[in-house]
């Protein structure tokens, strides 16, 4: 893979990011209702309101606001949250690792289970394993993740209470973290009690996030292996007398992975978007949960910051997917 390819992708990301910045800014400025009135009590004097408007720069023209906003962004300043009265960047950086850990766990679960199911489905083609894999993905996709998450809470949190269903740590756990990456940090520090607690809290939301992606990976991988299996080089391998398992894993899988990776990338952005809801359901203290609070409180600077963060996440994911795609596909690798 060439450096030119990488550079091209990076340069392409710039106008997209700028576009998102503009759209978010414009959308949030046409909001009806005054955010200052939302944050201030009914007893405030007009002078108080005016003063706050100046502090938040809301008294300037839209164009001036946009220029100031861009300049601040370039300096890494996202402004001050109206509802929490803290620096937006600081708030986001506090929550982002929580969401990243959760997403990585969910993605790992989805890929591990999905690929495994896809392989089983392809290996047992036309027999019960394929039917079972098809049945699983059909059932998973028929019910939205919102309801799956609630079902998990009912089944594993209430009916058979074996899993924690809210928060990130048990209340009585003593843990003084240096970073927000609790799972990684507790593992590195060898604090297995904390590690287990963080892991247990993470499993249900991660599974709920991972389910749709798991089903999609299983489905696409299975049908692309089945498709690849009709090609000449597979016939060749068969003629050489390799057994079916070896042919699927060593010969067919690599080529069958290309469409799966493309699709996984697109779906992974949906997984990240899904954290907004899933974190809310499991009272998980991540970025998505904060996004909902920000919207409820009409906290413009915070909403802006969170949406931009998500946009950057999506761009990074798409970039990674393109890279993986290029590594897997020899025509792009050498092109």
């Amino acid at each position, binding site marked *: 893979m060439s450096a030119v390819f990488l550079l091209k992708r990076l340069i392409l990301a710039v106008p997209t990011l700028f576009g998102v910045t503009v759209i978010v800014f414009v959308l949030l400025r046409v*909001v009806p209702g005054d955010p200052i009135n939302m944050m201030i009590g009914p007893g405030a004097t007009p002078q108080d309101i005016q003063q706050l408007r100046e502090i938040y720069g809301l008294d300037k023209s839209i164009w001036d606001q946009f220029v100031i906003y861009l300049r601040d962004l370039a300096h890494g300043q996202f402004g001050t949250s109206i509802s929490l009265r803290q620096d937006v960047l600081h708030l986001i950086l506090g929550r982002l690792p929580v969401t990243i850990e959760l997403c990585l766990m969910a993605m790992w679960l989805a890929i591990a289970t999905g690929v495994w199911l896809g392989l089983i489905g392809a290996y047992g083609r036309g027999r019960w394993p394929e039917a079972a894999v098809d049945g699983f993905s059909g059932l998973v996709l028929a019910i*939205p993740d919102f*309801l799956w998450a609630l079902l998990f809470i*009912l089944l594993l949190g209430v009916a058979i209470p074996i899993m924690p269903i809210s928060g990130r740590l048990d209340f009585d756990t003593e843990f003084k973290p240096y970073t927000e990456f609790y799972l990684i940090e507790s593992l590195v520090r060898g604090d297995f009690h904390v590690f287990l607690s963080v892991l247990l809290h993470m499993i249900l939301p991660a599974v709920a996030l991972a389910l749709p992606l798991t089903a999609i990976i299983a489905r696409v991988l299975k049908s692309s292996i089945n498709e690849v299996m009709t090609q000449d080089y597979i016939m060749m391998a068969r003629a050489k007398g390799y057994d079916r398992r070896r042919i699927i894993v060593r010969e067919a899988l690599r080529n069958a992975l290309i469409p799966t990776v493309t699709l996984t990338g697109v779906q992974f*952005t949906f997984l990240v*978007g899904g954290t907004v*809801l899933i974190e809310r359901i499991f009272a998980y203290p991540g970025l998505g949960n904060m996004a909902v609070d920000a919207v*409820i409180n009409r906290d413009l600077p915070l909403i802006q910051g969170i*949406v931009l963060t998500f946009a950057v996440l999506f761009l990074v994911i798409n970039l990674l997917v393109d890279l993986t795609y290029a590594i897997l596909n020899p025509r792009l690798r050498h092109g």
Partner: protein
Amino acid sequence: MAEATEAVLAGPAPQRRLRTALKNGRVLFGGTVLAALVVLAAGAPLIAPHDPLSQDLISSFLPPSWAPGGEAEYLLGTDSLGRDILSRLIFGAQIALTVAVVASFFAALIGTFLGLLAGYYGGWVDWLISRLVEIWMAFPAVLLSIVLVAVIGTGLHSVIVAIAVIDWTRFCRVVRAETMVQRRQDYVASAVTIGLSRRRTLFAEILPNVVPLLIVLFTLEMGIAIIVEAILSFVGLSVSSDTATWGGLIQEGRLYINQVPWLMVLPMICIILSVLGLNALGDGLRASLDPVMRR
């Protein structure tokens, strides 16, 4: 020949199709669910045993009447403020169905119009609309709807706008593809030959042939809209928490999950039943309305 005679004897095509559709189990199940929803929503003030807003703080958190401690007066129990859950569920059906119908209608309107244009005119029109759909679909729906609600403000109207603005792409893609197929049919060539204008050909000739497909999409979209409404009321971005919604009930149930699990279970059953019913109806109708699948 015998088949043709039979077909003629069986009556005109649309009625025959309706009859085959009704024989389909999925259509029957979905139709029943939809009919029940309509009856509950339309007759809510008559059917509901209590006012969904009237509080009875002495009898809060009552279990369903058949469970120990339940009271016959409150068939499915009460919530934290002693409001009758059954009545709230029935009035919740009103909101769910309103959102499902109105939001799907607007999504269908925008999507069908753009889909027809893209499919019939092709060229730069198609290119522009297709790119728009692609960009639209690249953004996760949950996040987009939350940004939209942040912009328009909470409330029923913004939920409807959010769903329509996000989901028109579902209609657009399918209608575009179907229009492209229809455009090559003989009847379109005939319409052009007898001198119908392009606009007339599109809306008077092609559109009616897309309608069966639209019915299917509309049914499926209603299921999606019910879920989205539930999600937005669950996170508190839909109507005010006083108004009875299924998502709002779930949110309350989530708060008291360990004390009163039925509070969450009951609205979930309503949502799952409605969504499975509407999906079954859509799939069943597709099987009997889609000429390719019918054969």
